[in-house]
């Protein structure tokens, strides 16, 4: 297994999440403006995170979005749309002169990500034991950082948001303390592959293909009961019925984005994301196929170049995440060899 993927799946890996844009939204018009662009109901308490998305007018994806309620303001963490683009969309939703303060943190702040079944333990030793009690999709002030729990790998995942100038020292500290955890530095490519293995949506891959939440199986991030940018197009698309839907594929590969998918010699779709899983030892892909065939347990063929490969559909996650079995009250990286865990 590659060292950084091993760390993500078995210990902990750290990375700088420079691909995430951060925007602070405040003012008395903040809720109304946000409510008109976020497709989910904005039921959020202080310290809670909502996983949602942003849609374009035609209901295709613009951004993968975390909305964090911080007292009376909101932090938006976006992949796929920069802070300026989101700011423009928010300003379009309220009258000129409305009390809406928008502050991009792109120049002043940075994010460090920790992912892995023992990410909580490294953070507890490096920064504060308070991290251990942080629930999934929660965040709290860990002066001088804001600590958010919101990974996309199926393992324990945390983001530390703080002053950009403090990021290098934080990385050094985490890597130093992390030696006891066999920590590794990782990058977006490895994290994206882990996300694919766990069925997390990727705005840079399948999200860039002008698909709607219906094809992408993201309807849980949208409400049909409220109005927002893209809502009318999404309702219309639902009424018409989607002809295709993404489904997870595995095979001995190689597989690549754009490969055609066949059933009994008939082309039924194409790969929209693919990569080699060093954890499984085979290839994992996401295919956009005709809706009636978008189910697990079916055998297909994939055309990769001149080769025809046997592949089959499967329910994600396609690995058995170690984080399902690691509990902060019962486990520690130091004593991992004394524990018995199921295979990944």
């Amino acid at each position, binding site marked *: 297994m590659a060292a950084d993927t091993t760390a993500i799946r078995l210990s902990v890996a750290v990375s700088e999440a420079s691909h995430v844009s951060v925007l602070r939204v405040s003012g008395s018009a903040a809720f109304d403006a946000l409510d008109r662009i976020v497709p989910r109901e904005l039921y959020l308490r202080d310290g809670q995170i*909502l*996983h949602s998305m942003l849609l374009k007018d035609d209901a295709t994806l613009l951004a993968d979005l975390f909305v964090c309620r911080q007292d009376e303001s909101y932090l938006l963490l976006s992949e796929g749309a920069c802070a300026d683009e989101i700011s423009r969309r928010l300003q379009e939703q309220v009258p000129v002169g409305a009390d809406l303060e928008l502050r991009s943190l792109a120049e002043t702040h940075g994010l460090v990500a920790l992912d892995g079944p023992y990410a909580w333990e490294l953070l507890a030793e490096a920064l504060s034991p308070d991290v251990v009690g942080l629930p*999934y*999709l929660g965040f709290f002030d860990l002066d001088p950082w804001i600590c958010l729990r919101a990974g996309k790998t199926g393992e324990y995942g945390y983001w530390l948001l703080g002053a950009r100038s403090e990021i290098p020292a934080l990385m050094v500290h985490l890597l130093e303390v992390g030696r006891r955890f066999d920590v590794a530095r990782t990058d977006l490519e490895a994290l994206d592959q882990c996300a694919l293995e766990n*069925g997390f949506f990727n705005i840079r891959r399948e999200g860039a293909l002008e698909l709607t939440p219906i094809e992408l*199986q*993201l*309807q*849980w991030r949208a409400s*049909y009961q409220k109005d927002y940018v893209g809502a009318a197009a999404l309702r219309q698309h*639902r009424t018409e019925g989607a002809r295709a*839907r*993404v*489904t*997870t594929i595995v095979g001995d590969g190689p597989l690549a984005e754009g490969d055609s998918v066949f059933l009994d010699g008939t082309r039924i779709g194409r790969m929209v994301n693919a990569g080699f899983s060093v954890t499984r030892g085979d290839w994992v892909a996401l295919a956009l196929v005709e809706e009636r065939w*978008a*189910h*697990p*347990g079916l055998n297909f063929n994939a055309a990769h170049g001149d080769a025809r490969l046997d592949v089959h559909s499967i*329910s*994600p*996650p396609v690995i*058995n995440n170690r984080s*399902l*079995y690691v509990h902060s009250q019962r486990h520690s990286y130091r004593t991992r060899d004394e524990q018995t865990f199921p295979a990944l």
Partner: protein
Amino acid sequence: MLRRVRELLINNLHVRREPDEIDPDAPLFATGLGLDSLDAVELVVCLETAFGVRLGDDQELRRKTRTVNSVVDTVLATTETSHGG
């Protein structure tokens, strides 16, 4: 089976969605369809009552109920095992 699991979620777990809104790979808990720990208990009871599925410990429950399709897979595996003798 997907249809039956969707109906179970709507009728027994009170997921406020139309069947076609419940995507097969949608996460059941937390940020997904919003089920909580109390719903997990209800889900265990419903799966046993409706399909004869017995989930073991908490870890098995979490692994086998991560998404709608995970539940479908679990039910199908139980059904095939019982039919296979």
